[in-house]
């Protein structure tokens, strides 16, 4: 009980700093995810459009996922230096797989009958993609986005090792100082961000599914 009050006092006293770290954390994740949406969706569409490219694109993103997160950030640090840019690119690489794969699967899963109907009313391939295949694949994309967000929040927490900010800063200084209160003050908000992102995007996913059903 004593510990909880101590923790609450610490968090209240440092609320400004913790809030700043939380915002920074969310910003890093948002940048990484935005990048991987911008690049991942076209890659997924390419893979679905040209069957020969699909194994290449999917296995490259698979291999990226296999690299341990700390090592990936360390390697990026060697070439890009310390800071925000490096972590954003690391998060982008890490969240690429779920987005590319789900876009690909979503477009593949579109019913052939619907596609035929689109061709039948004289749609060009581009129209078919923009008006039929892509809208119908959105629930899959949302599932991918949800997974990507959870992974990105988790990887962003080790950002301080390569000189980025975020809640990891509090956790890591807590580990080095052997200060349990600091650890919890960083870990609880980080966990909450991950859980809230998971729940909120899960809600969006169900909504898009319902709209199409």
């Amino acid at each position, binding site marked *: 009980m004593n510990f909880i009050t101590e923790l609450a006092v610490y968090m209240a006293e440092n609320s400004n700093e913790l809030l700043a770290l939380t915002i920074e954390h969310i910003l890093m994740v948002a940048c990484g995810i935005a990048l991987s949406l911008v690049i991942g969706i076209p890659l997924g569409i390419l893979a679905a459009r040209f069957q020969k490219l699909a194994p290449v694109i999917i296995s490259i993103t698979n291999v990226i996922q*296999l*690299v*341990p*997160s*700390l*090592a*990936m950030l*360390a*390697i990026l*640090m*060697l070439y890009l230096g310390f800071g925000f840019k490096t972590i954003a690119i690391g998060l982008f690489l890490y969240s690429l797989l779920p987005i590319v794969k789900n876009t690909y699967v979503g477009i593949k899963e579109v019913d052939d009958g619907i596609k035929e109907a689109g061709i039948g009313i004289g749609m060009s391939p581009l129209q078919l993609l923009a008006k039929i295949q892509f809208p119908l694949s959105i629930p899959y994309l949302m599932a991918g986005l949800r997974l990507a967000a*959870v992974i990105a*929040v*988790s*990887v*962003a*927490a*080790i950002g301080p*090792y*390569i000189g980025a900010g975020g*809640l*990891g800063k509090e*956790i*890591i200084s*807590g*580990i080095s100082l052997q200060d*349990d209160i600091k*650890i*919890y003050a*960083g*870990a609880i908000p*980080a*966990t909450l961000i*991950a*859980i809230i992102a*998971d729940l909120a995007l899960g809600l969006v996913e169900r909504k898009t599914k319902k709209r199409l059903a």
Partner: protein
Amino acid sequence: MIFFQGYMKYWREDYSSILAYMYEHMIISLTVIALSITFSIPLAVYLTKIKSDLIKTITFNIANIFQTIPTIALLALVIPLFGIGFVPAVVALFLYSLLPLLRNTYAGMNSIDPGIIEAAKGMGYGTIQRLFKIELPVALPYIMSGIRVTSVYIISWTTLAALIGAGGLGDLVLAGIGYNDSMMIFTGTFLAIIIAISLDLVINKIEKIFSYS
């Protein structure tokens, strides 16, 4: 070429410590994998046998929450409870590995054709006999793919165990970040990837030996 020579020199000088890191890494990962298999698979089998949906939902939700918590936050959260070193790393990674194995085993047991179970009952198999002779062998492909996915992830996550003093290849990467030494970082990364890939291949072989054809 000069880089290659430098790299060879690095290996010649440091191979004993590199191998020690690798050994630590494998001990941590294999302990976690063994623990996870002995705990999750019986639990998943038990979950398929009970009627109560409430217990199922609660178990899966708890496992899901562990999976959502950022890795470093979970590693840090166990420090106040278990201190630093090998034990807390194993506990945290074990909690992390629950969900994939639980979900795959559960899906595998549920995918069994009810006709097969009826046939076994008709032949007079008891519950235990049915479980070991029919249900588990039929669900084996699912279970094995769960073990494979989990193992590859655990190898990757174990790199982060170095952050709470458990050692492993993460130590090499962290030291590389500290000294800005690309050789250390790349060696740690590649060895982790090689361990993950070879474990994947070994499990694949085991699966082939035990699967019914």
